[in-house]
């Protein structure tokens, strides 16, 4: 069973529908026991980092997700959910993340060309940096859908793909059983479904 963490951040309709295409058993949940019972966890999120981290902490899911991932359960963070995997974010202040992956989250305005619009929104192609299990059904250059104004920096060790937006922005990361996509696989058509299918097939480490 794949548990989609519901902590009141964003609507999970599309994510549940798309995961249901590749896995028979998908539950949207904020229940600790369900999360513990799950084979895999998906951490979604839209909005601001600080709010999201606070909500995760207030539900007690912050520590639980951290423990489950550290015990080897596959975890996929999407968009803000990916950013939460990192140690720190500088979105409106200074916030602590799950710290499962080394690096921090910074505004894209700091590095992109001033002619580029913010947010980085639309379909962009993936530039593979390393092989990764979640890419097993897709190829370098495939297009995925992005919407974000912040990016993960200083994460060379876990970086598996970037996307070019005047500079190369972190598009996906992977460290052991922990995966993150800055883009939205649930909105990326067939390519996105293939990424979710590959994640659904990963195994605990």
């Amino acid at each position, binding site marked *: 069973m794949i548990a989609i963490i519901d902590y009141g951040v964003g609507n999970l*309709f*599309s994510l549940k529908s798309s995961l249901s295409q590749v896995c028979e058993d998908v539950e949207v949940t904020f229940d600790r026991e369900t999360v513990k019972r799950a084979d895999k966890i998906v951490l979604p999120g839209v909005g601001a980092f600080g709010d999201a981290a606070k909500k995760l902490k207030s539900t007690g899911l912050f520590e639980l997700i951290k423990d489950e991932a550290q015990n080897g359960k596959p975890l996929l963070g999407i968009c803000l959910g990916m950013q939460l995997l990192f140690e720190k974010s500088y979105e409106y202040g200074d916030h602590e993340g799950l710290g499962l992956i080394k690096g921090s989250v910074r505004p894209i305005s700091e590095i992109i060309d001033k002619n580029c*619009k*913010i947010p980085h*929104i*639309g*379909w962009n192609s993936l530039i593979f940096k390393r092989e990764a299990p979640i890419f097993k059904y897709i190829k370098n250059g495939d297009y995925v859908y992005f919407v974000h104004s912040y990016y993960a920096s200083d994460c060379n060790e876990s970086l598996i793909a970037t996307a070019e*937006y005047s500079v190369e922005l972190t598009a996906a990361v992977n460290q052991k059983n922990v995966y993150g996509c800055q883009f939205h696989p649930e*909105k990326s058509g067939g390519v996105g479904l293939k990424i979710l299918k590959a994640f659904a097939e990963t195994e605990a480490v």
Partner: protein
Amino acid sequence: MITKRIIPCLDVKNGRVVKGVNFEGLRDVSSPVELAKFYSENGADELVFYDIMASSDGRKIFTDILCETASKVFIPLTVGGGINSVGDFDRVLNCGADKVSVNSGALKNPDLIYDAAKLYGSQCVVLSVDVKRVDGVFRVFAKGGRENTGLEAIEWIRRCTDNGAGEIVVNSMDTDGVKNGFDLELLEKVCDAVSVPVIASGGAGKIEDFITLFKKLPKVDAGLAASVFHFGEIKISDLKRKMALEGIPARV
């Protein structure tokens, strides 16, 4: 590299696509779900569902159709038509819409864009604006283009982006339906005024119109059209191939 987006717009009334469509291989040509799937599989980058509200029953049917589409089509969906309150945002977002487009609702309630952007984020709030030249001035029209609000268009668009609109659909009433190309003069003015993505609408009649749009105005992010796609006058796959050949970034 980020691509230019091609967006078909589906007008839905009582659960059916209003303008007749004729595609080979589609079992039910006026089913929004079937048509959305078809477009998604044939290269559309995003879809707009426009609710032509007939009655409150019609609205319920629309919402059901939206849910069904969103559970089967995995590309970004924008919903417009009859969005007058934050409650309307909630209703369509819960059905799987990714963005919500407001037009007359923002004119009636000046706080709507600000309130919605605060709650759901700017990326979710699209301003749709119908513009027509009146005595040489670009004016904003309301109620599906029937009523001149007297507002100057660029000023209105700027005000809405200041309030949090994250994307602008610019529909030129002067070029709409003429099929002789997009309104480049108006679009250039909008692009110069705002820093959020601009979606061009009104006037596409052939593939070259899109090529001209993206070549002359590289700041335009997307092109939207309805009947030229529905009637098969432009195949999205052909359009995308031509864009790529012309060096315009496209998801082929």
